[in-house]
């Protein structure tokens, strides 16, 4: 490098000639080959970046069938007495092979009347902690920052800016189905809100005798 003959700083040289020499020095075969090697590496790097970044972004780019959820059964409607709010749990339809207990999901099922339900996510709308139902005061309370919700899931007090996340439900005969997928957060409540038709399951005739033992 230092013994390079074309030193543009050579004193006394004719300035335009000097500039031309300097310009020529930037276009030698060596410089060209070096730039070529850089360009080659850049090209290979860009091509390599596609699979690497694609792999890294896998959880984001993954096909929507798991992310947007599926219908899961919570059990017979007879397990949920009218007028009560009970804890139910299910295995997440988005579970992977290595999720263990973390694939279990809990939700609050409120049986309002006859075939009318509300199914709330356990996750507080503030920061996702598990809310607990208090039947006597008809409140959901969050242990983390004290968010409180009324029995219909609407915000009562505390830091949450909205009510509880609510799952869509369908009744397939006597079976209560909810649409679940993503862990519910402010951004990922698609499975809770977006209407999605329940296919291949037709409601059976309602069984009024079974419900009569649970007066409102």
């Amino acid at each position, binding site marked *: 490098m230092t013994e390079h003959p074309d030193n543009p700083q050579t004193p006394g040289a004719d300035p335009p000639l000097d500039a031309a020499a300097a310009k020529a020095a930037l276009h030698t075969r060596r410089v060209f080959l070096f730039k070529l090697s850089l360009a080659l590496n850049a090209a290979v790097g860009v091509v390599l970046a596609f699979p690497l970044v694609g792999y890294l972004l896998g959880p984001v780019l993954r096909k929507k069938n798991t992310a947007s959820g599926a219908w899961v059964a919570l059990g017979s409607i007879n397990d949920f007495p009218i007028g009560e709010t009970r804890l139910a749990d299910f295995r997440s339809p988005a579970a992977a092979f290595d999720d263990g207990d973390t694939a279990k999901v809990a939700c609050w099922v409120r049986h309002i009347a006859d075939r009318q339900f509300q199914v709330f996510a356990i996750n507080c709308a503030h920061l996702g902690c598990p809310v607990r139902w208090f039947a006597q005061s008809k409140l959901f309370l969050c242990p983390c920052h004290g968010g409180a919700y*009324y029995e219909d899931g609407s915000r009562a007090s505390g830091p949450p800016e909205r009510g509880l996340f609510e799952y869509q439900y369908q009744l397939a005969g006597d079976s209560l189905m909810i649409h679940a997928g993503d862990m519910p957060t402010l951004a990922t409540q698609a499975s809770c809100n977006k209407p999605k038709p329940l296919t291949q399951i037709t409601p059976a005739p309602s069984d009024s005798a079974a419900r009569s033992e649970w007066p409102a």
Partner: protein
Amino acid sequence: MASLKQRAIAAGLKSYEWLENRLGLIRPLTAAATHPTPANNASWWYVFGSAATVLLLMQVVTGILLALVYSPSANEAWTSLGILNHNIPLGWYLRALHGWGSDFMIAIVLIHMVQVFLFGAYKFPREMTWIFGVFLLLLTLGMAFTGQVMRFDQDAYWGLGIGASIVSRVPFIGAPLVHLLLGGPIIGGATLSRFFTLHVFVIPGLLLAFAFMHIFMTLKHGVSDWPMPGRLVRKSTYEREYHELTEKTGIPFVPDAAWKDAVFAAAIVFAVMACAFYFGPFGPTGTPDPTIIQTVPKPDVAFLWIYAVLAFLPANLETAAVLVAPILIIAAMLALPLVAGEGERHWSRRPVAVLMVSVIALTLAIFTHLGTYTPWSPIMEAWTADPIPPQYLEGRTPLERQGALVLQDKQCRDCHSLAGAGGLRGPALDTIASRMTEDQIIRQVLQGGGNMPAYGNALSPAETKALMRFLMTLHGDLAPAADASRELAEPTPPPATKTH
């Protein structure tokens, strides 16, 4: 014999020469270690950086040892921690060393930062040293958060939930960011795997590289001289002055200054060992089963202040504050040496710096303290665990006692204390009737407001009446609050006297 000894020494020297000829490292490292440093910085105030480095190395060693047993799988992580705690000889102690080492490292890094800030040591020519230091602080906190996830228990699970909920507040790309953070749509095996990768490969790699750069720059620019009031840092003269000071008063860093570092580092490591021995490892708490909702998730001590701040932010400010404030705080820390790279270094001439440190330290301490007992959270068991104090039931009418039952049964105690027992979310009720009239209490209970839910749907008229009767007996030594206008409107006895 003498000739044998001489020959042995000669052979040793020759091997050393051979090794150094091939390595070329021993001489430069020795020169770096024994470089002259101004005598005035061989002080007990200058020992925190080296102690943080020693703790980092200790964390690397204990972390590698824990990784021999720990299973980073959502199925097995919690169980493998139990095995470390109970089955592997000294496994509990390694976990304790790693956990306490983490807390000590955060504390020492923060103290180091405060010392450098108050001594003005971030100024020219050490701006980049400070900037790398800011990244080291962030990486240390990153290790603490990801380490908390490694303890894959209920706190870790719901801590991830809090992290996902915060990330979900980012506009437009909230959902993809949540999926990226969790490695999928839910907290599970993929989540633990990626936090394991961060905790074991990515962040430690960056931490070691940044620590190397930080130390390299400390050697390049020298350890900052002791600040003197009135001796200003100027870019034009500082390096010459520092050089002259070193020439005049220089002592070799090793051993004349480094012995204090070594003594302090040993004391800190011993303190970690002692804490680990006496207090043992952290957790794990319950299994990471999200259907177990009888849990009160709480972050580790380094993040308690954030947990507390999140309880106090108003709902309409929260997203903005949570997403923008960290960026501003980090940008301010990074910009500090670029904005204030010259001038006074001594703390006695920098009142704003001293004030900033005091206010920030006090704020963090107060929020951390609040985080230890979370006064904003209802105490979920208070309504069944804390009985009505007997003195509040003595001599009361049946209706008033019925009201006490309503108070318990409607979970009022979860947020309101009586005789010091119960939640702290709402005001204590011991003397409530001395502050509020019956009408005011009825309105507050039935309609709520001021961060209290409305109980209109949860109380029957009979329950409300009984509850009011009981609450109106709670006026301590004072007269019950009375509504003067009502007395004028209907001249009946004051509300506290029981006529019916």
